């Protein structure tokens, strides 16, 4: 469903953030993207929905070249792709319900959204999703009154109400405690299974990735250096991705 063909991105300074990245993701497949900070994980998922313009290669979703779309067509392609962010990226001064409904912006007109006149179906679906992430009683709370884990759940509901085919998830657990991290990852993977959603999840935490996904892609300095099952992530592979470190021994002071 999603195809990346030899995608590369170089910035104005000449540094190469992505170098010849190719892989496919099929419908319903959840992929974890691992790699050290600065390996290009964030750039890569932003090259998919064109928040960052790749400088070379092709990005295809359902056979359509996203990197050649502009204006309205690009917006229509973007609404098929839900995005979830590291720092939740909620609009803090809006209520939970408004944040979730903002995921419908590409489907409703300007005046409709200004007056908050969303179609009944959208409202019902918003409540269903809030039920699913366990926050329906918070619908009138302002987003800044929520805890980190709750904010990320609202972020997930906002992405899902777009009824996307693909989720791009940028470090969903980086600002959360270990328990919330596991809950969020479990929720994401369950939702993807229920809705047959494909997802690319950028994640630092290798153990967490191993626990929840069936396919891992390792990125190192903008190149794909591993693409396979989590079980095949051997010590040699991790060393190739992250550099020398003792991966098994517990840390002694």
């Amino acid at each position, binding site marked *: 469903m999603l195809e990346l063909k030899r995608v590369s991105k170089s910035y104005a300074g000449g540094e190469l953030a992505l170098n010849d990245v190719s892989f496919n993701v099929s419908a319903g497949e959840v992929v974890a993207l691992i790699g050290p900070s600065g390996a290009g994980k964030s750039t890569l998922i932003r090259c998919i929905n064109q928040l960052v313009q790749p400088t070379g290669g092709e990005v295809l979703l359902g056979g359509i070249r996203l990197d050649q779309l502009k204006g309205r067509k690009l917006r229509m392609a973007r609404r098929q792709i839900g995005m979830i962010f590291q720092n939740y990226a909620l609009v803090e001064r809006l209520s939970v319900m408004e944040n979730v409904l903002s995921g419908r912006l590409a489907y409703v007109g300007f005046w409709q959204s200004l007056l908050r006149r969303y179609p009944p179906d959208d*409202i*019902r679906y918003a409540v269903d999703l809030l039920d699913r992430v366990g926050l329906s*009683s918070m*619908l009138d709370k302002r987003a800044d009154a929520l805890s980190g884990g709750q904010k990320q759940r609202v972020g997930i509901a906002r992405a899902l109400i777009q009824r996307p085919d693909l989720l791009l998830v940028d470090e969903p657990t980086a600002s959360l405690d270990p328990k919330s991290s596991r809950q969020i990852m479990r929720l994401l993977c369950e939702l993807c299974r229920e809705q047959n959603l494909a997802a690319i999840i950028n994640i630092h935490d290798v153990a967490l990735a191993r626990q929840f996904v069936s396919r891992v892609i390792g990125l190192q300095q903008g190149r794909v250096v591993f693409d396979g099952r989590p079980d095949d992530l051997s010590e040699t592979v991790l060393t190739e991705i992250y550099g020398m470190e003792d991966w098994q021994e517990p840390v002694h002071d």
Partner: protein
Amino acid sequence: MTESNTSLRLSHARQGVWKPLPAITQRWKRLSLNLAVLLYLLLATSSIEVNWARVSQGMERGIAFIASFARPDFLSRLDEIGLGLLESLTMTFVATVIGTLLAIPVGLGAASNMSPTPVYLFCRGVITISRTFQEIIIAILFVTMFGFGPLAGVMTLAFATLGFTAKLLAEDIEDVRKDALEAVKATGAGWLQWVNYAVQPQVMPRLIGLSMYRLDINFRESAVIGIVGAGGIGATLNTSINRYDYDTSAAILILIIIIVLFSEYLSGHIRRWTA
């Protein structure tokens, strides 16, 4: 908001009916406020009297004034215009520097996260006094105290700059990121070091922007306060208007516009460069 209200709104939303919570929760308060605003608007509009005969008469004079822009006369009063502009620019620059320098301690004192309550109240008081009086009124006071001329003008503009810059600077200081404040305090740094390391870097772009903005406000104000005798180009402008010498007035106004435009352009550059 009550628990039952939330569950009511939730069950409505399940049926597809949802509106955002109104800013004012009680219905009667909301309605009476709307009504009051409407009533006030109606009363206020109906109290405006327009003398159309006077307007049509005035249109001609206004057109004559505007028409003189087509033939501005820079030459016949060249010396006065030159001196006036030079005086205004000097006043503007000196007043902005003095006012901004004084605004820094007052702004720090008026930021609630920086200073103890007595200092805070005192500095807020200074700001309030400065901002209560329009420049013209302060100018009249200073002209009475120091006599006609640019000294009174500089004092006026410096005082106005102090209130303006200190208020906006204080608000910016109150919005700085708390984590940096905490981190620098945790190192055991002294108060001045704390301000220098945690606050100054965060508010400097704003302070520079404000002082540039104030520079061109002060230039414009210098043209106005000249009318009450505080020196500068305003005095020249006032004389020319009193003599019905609109061609010279037009020349002066055009020069003011050019200088303000130039300072706008300059401040854009400086702000980008210091960002």
